[in-house]
């Protein structure tokens, strides 16, 4: 789980990307087996089906709207450092547990 501050940061980023690329929606998810666990996002669902591209082995991006293949790949490359940071935060996050 991400801390609130990171969630807000990601939400802002998704909002900015929606505006910059004129997308209906953009969101990030953690890859956990078959599950794509929602982390943060922005925009409006338009029910046209989502496009996806893995940024790293642990984080994937989804979007709705027109984004050429090359633009999507370039964007994914730009997001790699952020994705690495998110992965690290997700690995480090430990929920409080009385058992210890």
């Amino acid at each position, binding site marked *: 789980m991400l801390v609130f501050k990171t969630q807000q940061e990601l939400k802002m980023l998704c909002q900015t990307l929606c505006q910059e690329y004129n997308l209906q929606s953009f969101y990030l998810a953690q890859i*956990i*087996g*078959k*599950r794509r666990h929602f982390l943060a996002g922005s925009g409006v669902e338009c*029910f046209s089906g989502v496009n996806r591209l893995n940024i790293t082995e642990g984080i*994937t991006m989804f979007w709705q709207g027109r984004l050429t293949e090359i633009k999507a790949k370039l964007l994914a490359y730009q997001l790699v450092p952020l994705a690495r940071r998110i992965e690290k935060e997700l690995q480090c996050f430990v*929920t409080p547990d009385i058992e210890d």
Partner: protein
Amino acid sequence: MIRSVFIQTQISNEHKHFELVETTLTLFLGMIMFTTKEKHWHSTRRANIATWETHCKYVDFIDEATLSEILVRTKSPETGKVQNIIAEARENTLCGKMLSPEDVAILANTTDPELWEAIFETADWIKKTVYGNRIVLFAPLYLSNTCVNNCAYCGFRRGNRNLDRKILTPEELAEEVKVLVNQGHKRLIAVYGEHPDSAVDYICQTVEKIYETRQGFGEIRRCNINAAPLFNKEYEAVRDVGIGTYQIFQETYHPKTYQEVHPKGSLKGAYHWRLFGLHRAMEAGIDDVGLGVLFGLYDWRFELLGLLHHAMALEQAFGVGPHTISYPRLVSAENAPLTTQSKYLVNDEDFLKIVAIIRLMCPYTGSILTAREAFPLRLDALIKGGVSQMDAGTRIGVGGYAEMEKEHLAHKEQFTVKDSQSLDTFIFSLCSHGFLPSFCTAGYREGRTGANFMPLAKQATVKNYCIANGILTFKEYLMDYASPDVRNIGEETILPAYLKWIKENVPHLYARVQEGLKREEESIRDVHF
């Protein structure tokens, strides 16, 4: 008046208590038969649970006196009030708002048959408005029936010596999964007893095994879990193997009844540990959770208010309500006398009311009706209660699917299944009533989980994806598993009808669905949106 009702309730509880003494003694005898390993695991865990309960940061959301008072205050409601609540429930459907406890109590206290017809009609309308006329199909898979608990109503309870205990090995599990996959299933609810041999490591290993087992075109694409409450780190481990929903049924929200049917000192006897089990799951990052009550342990009206308060508490703490609500009803279980002796057993008429009220009360949530119920009642609940998910072809004995030739395995089962027809027969029945059978598992694989899923359900738009993915997964079933009769009705009637729905309601998705169907005919599988 209120005081008089409270006294009556108290007397009734005391009477019930005496009746349960014999059962409780038997349960305690069961407790002393732990192996050394079980004893150590149980005592360590019990101590940790007690520590957690002592430091519990959450405020109990079940105030027994308040809930009882609401039920008394709303007796014999006026027709106009009920009609207003029905209208409000329809409005709520488009914004995901839940009814208030008073509203739910009024519905539960309604007796006028005409008003009930209106409630049933509204439940059906809500379900169709949110999810469309599709029914998601799944299979329960029992992985173990060993359990350290001794719950009075459960066939798996420790004191039941008539039960053959079993924990599936990886090889046996693979066989079970292959049988289910060969029937066409894509979604499982994996069920585990609370025991050191089926604890968190076993859960994680078996979920991984379920996902990696393939048979031809088939595979399990979503594995939900029904298991005991865990500690946060254990939830994290379960989350990290990619589960769908984590279900914990409270069984009863009535504290005294809870203590009566779950022996003191047992793990399950810890009421607050269980009550906040899904809060801990949410804290640990599992954002799809399922609630449930075992109706028949206490007054069903009280239990409905309990479910509502639980959903409200989750929304308040995490901004995300329950992904699903289940409402199993107490049915007879091997060597568990309470299952036939409880004063609160729910009859069919009241059961239908429960299903419908849950739909009006919490319009966005998935509503799960299981094969505990006989088929005619299941069909009734489907039409009148707004059910959205059902199991079919169900076997609940551990290893039961690989032993399909046997109708029931009472010596391995937790309770008795009343609808044991095959998945294909069940699908034919759904089709003949105009429903779209769906094996959709797309949502959680497309990032529509937790806070990303809720707005779609709460704004009643999720049906656009539900119907599209229902069409694509049903088409897979028709090509790979269906009998000629099902293939006929599916290809000739059901698919064209729902494609028409997509064309009229989500026109920009229509071409993509058509393209998806074409790809499936070219032997490509798992096309989804």
